[in-house]
């Protein structure tokens, strides 16, 4: 749990670590070339991506993100965009410091083939 400074004069806020992970994984799904395989037809053929894990320690957060990209997206640029977007979203939304975001493109989906597999 990440303790924050008193939010109101009479209260405190606690943000669960899971929330940081969830924010990171939702942020990763906001990228255009990232396929969301957690629902819909892609769920049938792929494992649930994007997926993020956050480790909060000593006020800073270390995040690992796994995403699925569409073919043919240049992965280096995409991964850097995911890293930057996840970092800014987590910092903006949760107020925690992010020390490091590791991004793995764990899957690449050729959409036509994937669609045909299900049909």
């Amino acid at each position, binding site marked *: 749990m990440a303790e924050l400074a008193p*939010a109101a004069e009479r209260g405190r*806020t*606690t*943000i669960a670590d899971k929330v940081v992970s*969830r924010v990171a994984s*939702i942020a990763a799904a906001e990228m255009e070339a990232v396929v969301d395989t957690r629902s819909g037809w892609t769920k049938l053929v792929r494992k649930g991506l994007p997926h993020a894990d956050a480790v909060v320690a000593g006020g800073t957060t270390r995040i690992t993100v796994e995403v699925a990209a569409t073919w043919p997206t240049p992965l280096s640029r995409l991964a850097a965009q995911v890293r930057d977007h996840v970092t800014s979203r987590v910092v*903006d*939304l949760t107020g925690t410091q992010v020390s490091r975001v590791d991004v793995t493109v764990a899957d690449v989906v050729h959409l036509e083939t994937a669609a045909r597999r299900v049909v």
Partner: protein
Amino acid sequence: MSPAPDADTPDELADQVAAAALAVPGVHGLHAGSFGEVGTYLPGRRVAGIRLAGDLTEVHLAVVMGSPIPDLAAAVATAVSPLVDTPVQVFVEDVVPARTDQE
């Protein structure tokens, strides 16, 4: 869930706290905690996500992705504070993606 006979009258404190928290924009819902352990037992039912201890009021929430969570939690604490005599602690337990059709 048994409807309270005096539903319109200011009923249980837990219900009021829950209503105040849910009224804050950006709150998706109350959250019963990782193991479903957080709640207040009332006669015949349970208000999940609210715990009224003698010296602390806990509000456990799931929020909608989009607004800074510390600000949102502060808003909830501010909304709940007038109802209770104790300090309010807000626990943000989960985030849900913003629905694209609401943006």
